[in-house]
Every structure is written in C-alpha cells, then in structure tokens.
C-alpha cells in the first residue's frame, strides 16, 4: 500500500535545485512570522482602533477594526476633561526619578560587590539579594505603616504620630522602586564579566577608586545602565498595588490609578478609555523601542549566563 504513494510523491517533487528551491521557504516563514505577529498584536490594534473611533462607531456592532471616520475627539476629551495630564506627569516624574536613582545606586554597589574588596563583601551581597524573593504583599503592609509614621512629615510629630506622614505623596509612590535589589544583582553580573586589568593599570597610573569607576568602567557599562533604566522605569510605571494603598487624592495619582477610576465610575466609555490607555502605554513603548536590545538582553542575562 505504501510504495506507490511514495513513488508518486517522489515523481511529482521538482528536481532538487538549491538555488531556486531555497527562496520560497524563507518567504513562507516571513508570512508565518508576520501573520502570527498580527494575531498576537490584535488586542493592541483594537485599542488603537477604538481610541480613534467616534462614539457611534465604538458602540456599533459588529465591531470593525478600521475606523470609518477616524477622529481625535477621544484624545481631546481625556486631555481636556479628565485628570489624565496630571496622572501622566506624575507617572513620568515617578518613573524618571526611580530610573536615575536605580542607575546610581545599582551601578555603584554592583561594581563594588565584584571589583572591589572589603570584609564580608559576598555575605552582604547575598543577604541584600535574598530579599528580592520576598512577595510584595509582605512588604506592602509594614511599608504602609512606616510611610505613615515618618517623623515630622505630613503633620506628624517627632515620634511619627498624629499625621499622615508621607502618605499621598509622589515620594511615597517612589519608595519601593528607588533601587530594587534585583538591579544591584544585574549590575554586579555585568561588572563581573569586565576585565579587572583595566582597574589595575589605572591604579598604577595613580587613579583613585572613584575616578576608576567613573572614567574607566562606567563608560563601558552603557548596556547595563540602559537595562536598569528600562526595568526601573517600567517597574514603577506599571505598579498598581502600592499606589492604590498610599494614594488618595487625584493630584498625586499615577496612570494605573486613573485608568482604574475610569472603569469604576458607572457605564464604561470605551472610546475615551482606550484613548487614555493608548496614552498610558505610549511613553513606555517609546522608551522600550529606544532601548529594546538592552531590555531583552537584561531579561536573559539572569537566566542563560547566570
């Protein structure tokens, strides 16, 4: 039964020609890759579509992916009549600040934890890294009380009593993100792979430790600086639980809190909601697009190499 089938298949197959036979295969691959990417991206495409649709099209059924009469009215509405500009500013400030503090804290510490010597160095490092494993909910409750009881802030007395401390401030939103232990870990991994001869020759030339770090190693560490910047930026940008716990007024809220309020207030207006979501995503996507190589390599560096 099998033999004739095989012969027929063999006969109908064109003669092997590596030059001609090769080219359709990559292009088929291309179609497959592009098709799958399109399907996976559908939720984003619907978001963009709805954001540019006038209200009557948003509620039309069946839904159509391409708006018939694209409009900016949803964007005008969320920018003029909602708290979005404030929330966007708050998110940018919070994420911007924590990127800078994370870069500073993590590169300095990560460098010293591998390239410099001091008693108890590795013990201290592993102790600090071990808390990166702790679930966020373990940290949130005590941190809430700590923030509430910071002395002399928000109407508190010297013992941290009587007021609200740092609750409902942008500083409070930043606190758990200023320099996550994971960033120190990533920086150390990176500096570990850099040659120590650079430092030795600089020391022979009489350079101090600070100069060696800032003038020799840091300029070569741009990839890890970019990785830390993106990770810290995104981490603070997407945080929801902690801001939900510490923020109570619209002046301080970040984008996730604003989006949550959009949904919480009765009938959902999907046009403005998608416009706001689009604007909330855009800065991160731009930031990611500029640093994508470093971000993706940063993710894998902890796994494949380590």
């Amino acid at each position, binding site marked *: 039964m099998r033999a004739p089938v095989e012969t027929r298949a063999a006969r109908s197959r064109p003669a092997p020609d590596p030059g001609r036979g090769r080219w359709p295969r990559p292009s088929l691959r291309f179609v497959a890759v592009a098709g799958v990417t399109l399907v996976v991206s559908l939720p984003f495409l619907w978001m963009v579509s709805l954001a540019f649709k006038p209200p009557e099209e948003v509620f039309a059924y069946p839904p159509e992916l391409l708006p018939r009469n694209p409009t900016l009215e949803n964007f005008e509405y969320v920018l003029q009549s909602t708290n979005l500009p404030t929330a966007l500013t708050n998110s940018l400030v919070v994420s911007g600040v924590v990127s800078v503090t994370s870069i500073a804290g993590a590169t300095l510490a990560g460098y010293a934890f591998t390239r410099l010597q001091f008693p108890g160095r590795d013990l201290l490092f592993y102790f600090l890294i071990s808390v990166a494993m702790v679930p966020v909910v373990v940290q949130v409750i005590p941190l809430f*009380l700590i923030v509430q009881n910071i002395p002399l802030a928000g109407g508190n007395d010297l013992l941290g009593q009587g007021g609200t401390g740092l609750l409902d401030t942008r500083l409070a939103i930043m606190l758990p993100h200023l320099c996550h232990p994971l960033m120190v870990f990533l920086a150390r991994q990176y500096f570990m792979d850099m040659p120590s001869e650079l430092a030795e020759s600089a020391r022979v030339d009489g350079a101090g430790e600070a100069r060696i770090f800032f003038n020799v190693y840091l300029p070569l560490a741009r990839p890890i600086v970019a990785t830390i910047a993106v990770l810290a930026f995104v981490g603070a940008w997407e945080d929801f639980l902690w801001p939900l716990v510490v923020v109570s007024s619209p002046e301080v809220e970040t984008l996730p809190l604003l989006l949550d309020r959009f949904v919480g207030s009765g009938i959902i207006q999907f046009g403005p909601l998608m416009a706001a979501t689009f604007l909330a995503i855009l800065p991160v996507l731009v930031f990611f697009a500029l640093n994508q190589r470093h971000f993706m390599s940063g993710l894998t560096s902890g796994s494949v190499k380590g």
Partner: protein
Amino acid sequence: MTRQQRKRAVAALLFVAPATLYILIFFVVPVFYGLGLSFTDYNPMARGAPDFIGLQGYREVLASERFWSSIGVTLHYALGSLALAVPIALALAMLVNTQVAGITFFRSALFAPRVVALVAVSMIWLWLYSRDGFFNYLLDLVGIDAVNWLNNPDTAIWSLIVMRAWKALGQNMILFLAGLQSVPPHLYEAAKVDGAGRWQQFRHVTLPSLRPIMTYVVAVNLIYLAQSFAEVYILTDGGPLESTRVVNMLIYQEAFQYNRLGQASAMAFVLFVLIFGLAYFNIRAMTKKKDE
C-alpha cells in the same frame, strides 16, 4: 591590610552604602516589621494598643476556608496561565528563531505586551470581553450566543488566565529564544546523521537542551503569577462568587478594607513560605530530572 587596601575598602564601603542602606530600610526592615505584626491582632481602627497573640493569627489563617480557597484560585490561575503560555511561547520562539526580513521588529512586537502595564492590558481586554466585544463577535460568527465572560463564575477565571497568558508570551518567548540559540548546532547535525526527523530532533535535542531555561521560566512565572493582583482587582474584584479571589486580593481586602493588618501579615507570610516552597521544589524537581 596595607594602607592602600584599607583605603580601597573604605572606597568600596562608600560605593555600596547608598544601595545597602536603602535595601535595609525599605526591604529588610519591613520583612521583620511584618513578621512582628503577624504575631499581633493589630487593627488601626480598633481602640487600644494591639495585643501580642503569638501563633494565634497563623492558626486562624491555616484553619481559614477563605484563605485556602484563595490559594486554590491562585494555583488554578497560575498553573492555567503557565500551561497556556509556555507551549505557545516555545512555539513562537521556534518560529522567530530565523532570519527573515524585519525579524527584529517582529520579535519586539511579540515582546511588547511585557512592557505594557497589567492595568492597561486589563482595560484593553475589558473591551475584548465586553458584551459587544471581540470575543463575543467571534462566537457570533460561528453562531454561538454571547457570553458574559467576566461576570460568570464559570468563565471569569479562564478569561483572566487567557489574558495573563497573552501578556506572558513575549517575555517567555525571548527567554526560550535565547535558550534555542545556545543549543550547539553540532547536536542537530549528529541527530540528522542518525536519521532523526524534525519531531525527534525537537524531542531529543531541543527539549533536553532547554531544560535549564524551562526551569527558570516555570519558576519565575509561578512566583510572579502567584502574586497577581491588579488585573483581578480591576476586571472582577475577586468575583463573581469569589471565583477569582486570588490570595493577594484576599490579603489586600483583609489589610486595607477591613484594617486587620495583623491577620493580613500572617497571611502574607504563609504565602511567602508557600511561594518559596513552590520555587524550591520546582527547581529541585527539574534539575533532578536532568541528572537521571
């Protein structure tokens, strides 16, 4: 220690001081503070000072049906998302492990959901799952009645799982891609010489080579998924009928809606131990297989 070594050690301490002090104050201290709270019945709304109740809080948590049912929901949610995301992410990684035109763009586009906040993702999927949304439209095309995805106890958790798996695809794809690219090509050559077909190559070369990265992917995803909160809070608020009340949702309600901070801390520490155990046994189980 020579004078120079001492000087260098002082410099090193100055380098690590900012990060060390920060992590001590905002990560280490809260862990011990929280541990202390978990032995009390602290409630900021109650009159009087909190009482030290020892292990009483833990006993209540371990005997609490609400707690274990939320752990069950969390496991269902985490394992469901993992079971969906891992095979698809691996397939995607094999698909994009090629050099067609624009491949960098496609990889980035597939990765993009990773950098988009869960809250934003939830907003998009809120529409996809809405009455006149995309999924009901798909059902309509094949003649099935609309489903109230997020308000039905039978479908709510799976709706969240599918969304979460979608968000997890990109990151896992990139991890698998790095794994695939580190498989030595000569292994495939040797398999081909032995007459192995595509499936056999996948089964006997690709999968075993990916075991370390698989361990990492499963552990990282589980730790992350076990702490899900934002999407549940926004899309279902733990409902309907508590079918999506994951453990972080329960702890949040306990702490910040009912003000039982002591009890909530005890729950958080039980979760901590469970997550730690899960990660530990996962890594042990998967590295053990390798040795056999």
